[in-house]
């Protein structure tokens, strides 16, 4: 535990954007007003798979109030995907549509209602094709090819160590299959874009995005615009969770409509479109085979994944490849074999969602750990502790674990929930546990070769600062964290820091908010930038007081000599001295992930600079008549290195846990014949206020030596092990093992019936 006391770091201060948000003055995309703005609507395919014979938009073009129409002819040749070599999604369909909802044409009109009516006037002639909805059908011989190269988007196969040999040395081998469902992010703010292609050839887009600078680069490439004329602005953003970590057809279509009409064009998803056509967590089947010795030592793990990629390459390939790397993380397994197929189907394609594949693989690993423990006659907690990860270890990929508080997380969670007292008791109540290991600092090579963030700070004449960063605040409050770090380092107050984010023309580069990277990478960049200013202040103070630079500290808006209050000067006075001397007080911090591993030759995956850990446990009761699960208690302990703002860390844990509980118990995208049947909040059930149990969110601080003040990221971790904890608790309660998510009353009743 970190004993060092700081002034602002480690304090539970309210977030710096509280007032705009709580007074309703914070402007989100739909709140912004643009002179002459047109409203865009998209025509979408009603068929899951069809050839486009003819598109005739002439009637729509002639409709009063319609200012422009675009089709696949306008966007011809463009292919979208974050990963260029995988790009196969045209913004508007050219010769084929591949899922119900696939974009075909779009209209810009004076109002949304006119645009909607105009869509009905666009004539499209289709030739329907056989459609495939299950990955297992897509790989059968002789079936129709969804893409020219076939239905397998990617195949992965690699091994570290020798699993065959290790299985030979195992006392017991376990083989289990787990099924994971599609789950939607359900951001409260629907996705959208305002695009303005101005007359001088400059392009500005306003979007709730998680990745301003990467998106700027992508749009500049697509539209052939120099970066200096390409501007991405991110207003306040209503959620992300990975849904806004991609390049989507909406923004490209909006740009084309703006180019055609010469006016700003806004396109925003309806909630129906959010469900039907937006990104979501990939459905998968995971087979996991584990070899253990009777004393609980895990010797080998083989993981086989079949991913339902949907109709185009979104993040299916990278997420599945990443699962391979994640298969080597938890429980220090020395021999790991991974095999995967990412397969196209005629359904909408997914994307990254809080955990980037880790929720799926962790459900499999942690459910199976519970199975293994029971068979070995061990408590699951003891099985975990037997194989626990530790600081300094190398994973079988040869990657180093820097800080690690997993043991403490397990013990703290177990103690708080009353593990020993309440587990394996009679009746229909039970406890279950699940742990996680996930990056707390992004990953190198996911996008480009670096994992960087750049921060500029300029000090004003009154000692306050402006901090410029390319991060994206999407609810996690990272602007507050950067302000705390800057204030701590400079010895000023939180209200002295003005954080400027959300505009690529003003802010320096950052890869964005994903992979739980912002606190670690941008936090370190902030610390470096602040240090540069601080040293300049110390230098000036040392001249004034004829004392060595090393003797000064910055605190309470003053620079002073430790233990000598006479040798003190206010930071604002120093700032004026600099100004009068014609010198600039500014700092720049550019921080890149310190690992030096290139993409791993076998997995293709980059290294991560640190790992966050956590353990969650749930106490629940199962109603034997209805199969309903009643959540009684939840405990989550997370190792975050150092909690820069404990209140905000707890908020991330609470929120992630509740998303995890939804994934475990109530959320599932349900398709029938390629049609998504649940496209609203009534039929796709996220947890409401009445569903949440009491949640205890606890923090462990393992002080990562590379992290700013020891901090690591925690944005994704809390959503990762939750489902396994629930499945394990259901087993503890009623002896029923559910291996597919969500764990619905119907599944429980069916299993109870079959066991009798």
């Amino acid at each position, binding site marked *: 535990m970190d004993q060092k006391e700081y002034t602002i770091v480690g304090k*539970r201060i*309210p*977030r710096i*954007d*509280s*007032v*705009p*948000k*709580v*007074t*309703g*003055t*914070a*402007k*989100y995309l*739909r*709140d912004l007003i643009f002179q002459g703005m047109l409203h865009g609507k998209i025509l979408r395919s009603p068929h899951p798979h069809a050839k486009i014979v003819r598109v005739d938009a002439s009637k729509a073009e002639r409709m009063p109030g319609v200012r422009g129409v675009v089709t696949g002819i306008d966007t011809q040749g463009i292919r979208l995907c974050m990963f260029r070599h995988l790009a196969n999604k045209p913004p508007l369909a050219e010769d084929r549509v591949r899922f119900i909802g696939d974009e075909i044409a779009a209209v810009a009109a004076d109002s949304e209602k006119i645009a909607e009516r105009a869509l009905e006037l666009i004539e499209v002639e289709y030739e329907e094709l056989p459609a495939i909805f299950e990955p297992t059908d897509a790989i059968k011989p002789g079936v129709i090819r969804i893409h020219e190269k076939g239905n397998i988007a990617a195949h992965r196969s690699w091994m570290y160590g020798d699993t065959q040999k290790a299985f030979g040395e195992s006392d017991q081998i376990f083989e289990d299959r787990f099924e994971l469902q599609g789950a939607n*992010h*359900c*951001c*409260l*703010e*629907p996705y959208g874009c305002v695009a303005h292609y101005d007359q001088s050839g400059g392009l500005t887009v306003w979007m709730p995005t998680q990745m301003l600078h990467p998106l700027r680069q992508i749009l500049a490439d697509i539209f052939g615009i120099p970066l200096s004329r390409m501007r991405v602005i991110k207003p*306040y*953003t*209503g*959620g*992300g*969770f990975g849904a806004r970590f991609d390049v989507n057809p909406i923004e490209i279509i909006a740009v084309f409509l703006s180019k055609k009409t010469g006016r700003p064009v806004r396109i925003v998803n*309806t*909630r129906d479109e959010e469900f039907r056509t937006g990104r979501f967590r990939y459905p998968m089947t995971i087979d996991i085979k584990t070899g253990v010795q009777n004393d609980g030592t895990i010797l080998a793990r083989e993981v086989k994944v079949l991913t339902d990629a949907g109709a185009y390459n979104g993040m299916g390939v990278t997420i599945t490849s990443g699962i391979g790397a994640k298969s080597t993380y938890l429980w220090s397994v020395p021999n790991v074999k991974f095999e995967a197929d990412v397969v196209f189907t005629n359904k909408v394609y997914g994307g990254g969602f809080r955990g980037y594949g880790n929720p799926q693989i962790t459900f499999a690993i942690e459910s199976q750990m519970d199975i293994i423990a029971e068979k070995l006659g061990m408590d699951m907690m003891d099985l975990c502790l037997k194989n626990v990860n530790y600081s300094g270890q190398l994973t079988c990929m040869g990657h180093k674990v820097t800080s690690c508080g997993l043991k403490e997380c397990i013990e703290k969670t177990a103690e708080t929930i009353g593990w020993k007292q309440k587990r394996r008791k009679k009746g229909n109540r039970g406890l279950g546990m699940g742990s996680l290991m996930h990056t707390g600092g992004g990953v190198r090579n996911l996008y480009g070769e670096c994992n960087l963030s750049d921060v500029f700070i300029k000090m004003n004449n009154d000692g306050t600062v402006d901090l410029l960063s390319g991060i994206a605040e*999407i*609810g*996690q*409050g990272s602007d507050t964290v950067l302000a705390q770090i800057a204030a701590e380092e400079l010895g000023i107050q939180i209200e002295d820091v003005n954080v400027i984010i959300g505009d690529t023309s003003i802010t320096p580069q950052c890869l964005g908010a994903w992979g739980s990277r912002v606190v670690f990478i941008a936090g370190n960049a902030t610390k470096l930038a602040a240090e540069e200013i601080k040293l300049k202040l110390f230098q000036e103070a040392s001249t004034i007081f004829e004392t060595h630079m090393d003797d000064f500290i910055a605190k309470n808006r003053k620079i002073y000599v430790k233990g000598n209050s006479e040798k003190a000067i206010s930071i604002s006075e120093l700032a004026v001295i600099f100004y009068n001397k014609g010198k600039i007080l500014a700092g720049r911090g550019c921080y890149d992930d310190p690992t030096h591993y290139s993409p791993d030759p076998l997995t293709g995956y980059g290294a991560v600079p640190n790992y966050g850990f956590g353990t969650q446990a749930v106490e629940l009761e199962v109603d034997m008549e209805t199969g309903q699960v009643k959540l009684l208690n939840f405990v989550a302990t997370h190792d975050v290195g150092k909690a820069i703002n404990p*209140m*905000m860390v*707890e*908020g991330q844990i*609470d*929120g*992630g*846990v*509740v*998303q995890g509980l939804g994934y475990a118990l109530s959320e599932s995208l349900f398709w029938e014949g390629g049609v998504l049947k649940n496209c*609203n*909040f*009534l039929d796709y059930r*996220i*947890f*409401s*206020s*009445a569903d*949440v149990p009491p*949640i205890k*969110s606890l923090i462990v601080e393992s002080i990562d030596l590379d992290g700013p003040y020891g901090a690591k990221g925690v944005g994704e971790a809390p959503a990762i092990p939750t489902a396994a904890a629930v499945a394990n608790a259901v087993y503890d309660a009623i002896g029923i093992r559910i291996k597919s998510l969500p764990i619905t009353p119907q599944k429980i009743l069916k299993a109870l019936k079959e066991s009798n």
Partner: protein
Amino acid sequence: MKKKIDLKVNGEKCLVEVDPHMTLLEVIRDELGLTGAKLGCGGGECGACTVIFNGMSVKACLFLALDAAEGEVWTIEGLAKEGNLHPLQQAFVEHGAIQCGFCTPGMIMASKALLDENSHLAEQQLKNGLVGNLCRCTGYTNIFQAILSVTNIDEKL
């Protein structure tokens, strides 16, 4: 065919021209420029559009503008007085009950309506009362703590 209606918004009289199909949400946001209430789903399921109409919490996205004629509407913009946050708003700030902020205006107005009806709200009543206001970021825990911190106080909220 546009029709002129009178209504009181945040204590002020307003005269607006509305189409028969317009919702109260559209009037508040597009005609009056009060963008605190949000369009989250358009189907009355998420609660991001919650405002108080004639003392009751309503989903403005499903409330026809014409039905608001002669009525009194309170939105999030009407809570803070002369730069001072309402106790509920202050509580949300202090308890970390805000993350992305999109659900926040609706959540606060829904809570205010509950507290106006019963200032001694118990935890379970609160949890049930907010069922119509979805939040995807906070997990609701800090929201409950914020609201419960201002229950049972004598000051009229």
